[in-house]
């Protein structure tokens, strides 16, 4: 079985007025077919840029992306529509990603029209099918996106992405604009769709608890690089990278009794700017267990205890630092 997505040495740099931003700075990523792959990290770690580069919304400065065994840029150039039928994207802000002048019905029909799928009647049937898939009532068809609730909007944008029956779905923070109880609805929808349609889903998220809940694999990013990756439950149970440990520790428990007694790791300061990442390990400026070598040489990803890989000098297959 080929992997759904393979990125090698991916770099995305932007030239801004304040200098060169290394948003993604050398990322290798492999997403297995049928995986539900989470990408987590703080703002500025490059997770959104990575997701956008995977589908080509952002052009890569260096490196390659292969999707379903084909070179992404060649594929998108030679067969734009074929690529669109195979790979779809869900945006963070569902309202912004839909034309404010089109009704839900028109929005859902648009991809079908672009790809000349069936006649008007067949398209209407497909739209009805899509509404069923994301559990929306037919009454929303004639409404404008603005008049829908946040959760309904995200359902519409998911339905639109599924209109062409893609194999790979890349989602950029699809949950962050939603309320807690609605977030759970959408997460469950993703999980159901993934099982029902055999999709490969890559989801960028900052809600770690939800990633652990639904994702099979997870990649933790820090300042444009992969800090750690592995099977979600195993990594969350025993994170090897000090940054992953701190990130997980920062998530409060909803139970105040646990919260009152739990030891917490508080990192000092904010993440450094991706404009001038520190030399050596990028986490060295905030790492509580930093050693001199960390400031000099950048650690490579290597196999660690939980079966995944971490980029830390203090971690290998037998032991890793604990903070």
């Amino acid at each position, binding site marked *: 079985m080929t992997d759904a997505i393979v990125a090698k040495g991916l770099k995305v740099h932007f030239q801004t007025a304040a200098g060169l931003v290394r948003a993604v700075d050398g990322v290798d990523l492999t997403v297995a077919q049928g995986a539900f792959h989470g990408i987590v990290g703080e703002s500025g770690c490059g997770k959104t840029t990575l997701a956008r580069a995977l589908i080509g919304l952002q052009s890569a400065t260096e490196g390659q992306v292969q999707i379903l065994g084909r070179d992404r840029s060649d594929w998108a150039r030679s067969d734009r529509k074929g690529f669109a039928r195979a790979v779809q994207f869900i945006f963070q802000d569902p309202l912004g990603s839909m034309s404010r002048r089109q009704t839900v019905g028109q929005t859902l029909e648009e991809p079908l029209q672009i790809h000349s799928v069936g006649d008007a009647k067949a398209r209407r049937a497909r739209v009805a099918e899509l509404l069923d898939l994301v559990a929306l009532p037919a009454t929303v068809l004639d409404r404008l996106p603005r008049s829908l609730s946040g959760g309904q909007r995200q359902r519409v944008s998911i339905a639109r992405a599924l209109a062409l029956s893609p194999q790979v779905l890349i989602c950029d923070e699809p949950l962050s604009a939603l309320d807690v109880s609605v977030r759970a609805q959408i997460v469950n929808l993703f999980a159901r769709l993934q099982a029902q349609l055999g999709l490969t889903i890559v989801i960028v998220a900052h809600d770690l608890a939800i990633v652990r809940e639904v994702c099979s694999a997870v990649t933790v990013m820090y300042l444009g690089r992969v800090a750690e990756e592995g099977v979600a439950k195993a990594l969350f149970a025993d994170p090897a990278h000090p940054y992953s440990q701190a990130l997980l520790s920062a998530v409060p428990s909803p139970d105040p009794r646990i919260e009152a007694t739990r030891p917490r790791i508080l990192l000092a300061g*904010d993440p450094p700017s991706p404009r001038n990442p520190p030399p050596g390990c990028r986490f060295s400026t905030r790492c509580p267990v930093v050693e001199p070598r960390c400031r000099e040489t950048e650690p490579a990803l290597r196999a660690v205890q939980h079966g995944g890989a971490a980029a830390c000098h203090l971690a290998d297959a037998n032991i890793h630092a604990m903070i």
Partner: protein
Amino acid sequence: MSRHSQNGPIYEVEGLVIDLYTPTVSVRAVDGAGFYVAPGETLAIVGESGSGKTVMTLGPLGLLPEGVAVDLRGTARADGKDILSMSPTDLSRLRGGFFGVIFQDPMSALNPMLKIGPQLAEQARRFAGLSAEEAKKEAVSLLARSGIPDPEDRYDRYPHELSGGMLQRAMIALALAARPRVLIADEPTTALDATVQAQILALIRQIQKEDGIAVILITHDIGAVSVLADRVAVLYAGQVAEEGSAIDVLTAPVHPYTRGLLASVPDFRSNNATGTKEIPGIPPNQAQLEPGCRFADRCELVQPQCRTHRPPLVKVGAGPVPHRVACPVVMAAEGIVTHD
């Protein structure tokens, strides 16, 4: 480790009704809700967007959304004084000195054209009655206290020169500059990253311990509530569904909405992962004034009387901190008796 205080409430709101009007819609944002907070305790007001949590807390202080007409009824007392009948001047003085507010977006409270330090000093001079010299010293120490490294240097920085986490700290320093007795934090960590969120929550808790002030945390983030709150009020569609100590409400919720809300928040530290539960449906349209329980349409336990009679908030349990719930149906089904 109850930090519950025996003092009377310092800020108290009762039977508050707030209607918001724009040319196209009329919304009952707060529908007969109330809360109280005592010195030395942290009250978390929890609700989803549109639940009225911000309007309920800040509305009586005259901090309301712009461009809408407001009709506000009920009682609100700060330190025993009725604030709804105050003149705008008195209210503005109270807002500056008695209440300190931390907003979600620090850029909305800090003047981008002025250096951080002088803004703090001005606030300290006006409301804490310090001389210019003292105010500057106070500003530097406030910055240091808010966990800003190298405060003398940051004193002369403009807001845009600070990172998001540092700005939120400067915002906290600004809220503290007038030495408030009630600190209101409106979604203080929503815009921040996980590791920075943890820092800010720890900072607010530390300040609260040191100064013994009352803190009101307005949030939708159950994690933040669990870290900070002594007491919790859960707001749904402008009405209080449940209130009580954080431990009671978060670990033994009674109201179906509270239960649903908590079930939809996964806890990755617990191993009995049962999957994320969801509350079906969406919050009601608050433009329509319907009788009965606002949660009725999404509730699994709904009974016919839920749609006609508004459930009263009644005391359950006999703990030192009153635990109140507005759902007679659950109480009847589970044999919970009133302690009123």
